């Protein structure tokens, strides 16, 4: 089998998800030997034109230019895989979707006219068809390797969509809700991180977005029993996957603070 041609593309993001690939220190050279890294500017000056067998796309669409670029990337790629909360859900920068972006520009830049931006930060799937997604802010190294080995092998990656609680118990973490009364989004959050936050005695803040078939309404009800301040609950839902419709719906149940 010819080595699949890999492209890694960045839109609005922090670089962290693609850095995950370079953080696979033990496997990097083997991966580099197995795939043809045709376009990965963070790692290589060699930038070859498409088509690509696999495109890893990091970041959300926030500019008119990127809205066009993602069409181009899709057209050139056999498989398009989104990596990370920005690409799968708009990222933390999707908080702009709740505000007036012109005000934001004016608040941040002295000369707003120099800035070209869209009113929203949107997930890649809002623009083009996505073949697989790796959730998380950032993605998990083990999941990235699983995805890459699956692609090399020609099989479906094993990327479970159950909730963090299952992984929390697999890991032997102590439940922070029960032991400490700490608010935790684990029950409704998509697995993949290995239940990291509860393992460090803090509540999950939902950076993998919603899990399949869970009960976010019951989660909100529980949070309302735990946390007196509504705006705190709203901010919890409005985190790194704030634009996800499931989380956004729950956030809309809570007002308070200055965000209503």
């Amino acid at each position: 089998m010819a080595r699949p041609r890999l492209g890694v593309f960045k839109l609005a993001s922090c670089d962290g998800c693609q850095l995950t690939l370079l953080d696979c220190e033990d496997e990097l050279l083997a991966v580099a030997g197995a795939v043809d890294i045709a376009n990965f500017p963070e790692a290589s000056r060699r930038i070859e034109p498409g088509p690509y067998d696999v495109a890893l796309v990091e970041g959300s669409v926030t500019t008119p230019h990127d809205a066009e670029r993602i069409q181009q990337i899709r057209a050139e790629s056999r498989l398009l895989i989104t990596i990370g909360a920005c690409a799968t859900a708009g990222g933390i920068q999707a908080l702009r979707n709740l505000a007036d972006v012109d005000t934001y520009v004016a608040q941040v830049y002295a000369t707003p006219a120099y800035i070209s931006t869209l009113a929203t930060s949107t997930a890649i799937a809002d623009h083009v068809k996505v073949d697989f997604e790796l959730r998380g802010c950032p993605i998990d190294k083990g999941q990235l390797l699983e995805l890459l080995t699956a692609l090399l092998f020609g099989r479906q990656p094993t990327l479970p969509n159950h909730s963090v609680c299952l992984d929390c118990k697999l890991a032997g973490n102590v439940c922070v809700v029960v032991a400490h009364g700490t608010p935790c989004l684990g029950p409704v959050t998509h697995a993949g991180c290995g239940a990291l936050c509860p393992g460090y005695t803090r509540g999950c803040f939902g950076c993998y977005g919603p899990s399949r078939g869970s009960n976010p309404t019951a989660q909100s009800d529980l949070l309302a029993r735990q946390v007196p301040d509504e705006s705190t609950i709203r901010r919890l839902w409005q985190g790194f996957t704030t634009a996800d419709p499931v989380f956004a719906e729950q956030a809309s149940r809570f007002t308070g603070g200055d965000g209503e």
Partner: protein
Amino acid sequence: MTAAALDLWRPVPMPVVSKVQETADTVTIELDARDSPVRFAPGQFTMLYAFGHGEVPISISGDPAHPERLVHTIRAVGRVTNPLVAVEPGQVLGVRGPFGTGWPVHDAEDGEVVVVAGGIGLAPVRPVFHALAAHRERYERVWVLVGARTPADLLYREELERFAGAHGFDLRLTVDHADDTWDGPVGVVTRLLEAADFDPSRATLMTCGPEIMMRFVVREALRQGVPAEKIWLSMERNMKCAIGLCGHCQWGADFLCRTGPVMRWDHAMHRFDVGGL
């Protein structure tokens, strides 16, 4: 006791010896089981393992008289069945089994047999045809009522016709949607059942297909007077281990990999209409 000797989780490698394309998405493959013959009852299934992709339950669709030839008919629908359907002769699969319960081919002796199957549901009853053919004299009339979405989705069509000719089965086929190759009946398989004039008091009915199809088949059979304890069906649930340890295939108190997939209607009837059980 050594753990390895008891390891029911571990497959046995078997090479593919032949592959027949049945329909656009379905193939029949035969595995060479001479080294470890799979003696099975019609209706039983194995766990088939595609290297690196995983294991899925697939009914044995071959002739029970030939345990050294393990035959399966597989429809490509996803993660594991896609690579299973793509195997070529010479490649090796992993096999565990056989597992589960079988059709009542012995209990059905000295009476009529009515087999009603839809779509891929024909695969688990195909061994029944072999078993009945092998002892044709023990049975009265044999009805084979088969439904498919379109003529192109009909499984084993020529073979069924050959069987029917050679062994005197009353074969009736129907499709949901006809095309220009089709001049047979159009409609659901229950219509065939309505039209078949078997003696309900002497018949054993075996049905396999989507749950919704089986619901109507059973309803019609009961209406015609087939006793509940002579109606048999094959249930499908997610299965991961096939040895009653993973919990996935539970349906009420049944582990369908052990006390199913084939069961009598009077065993199933109290739950069959409970949604999402």
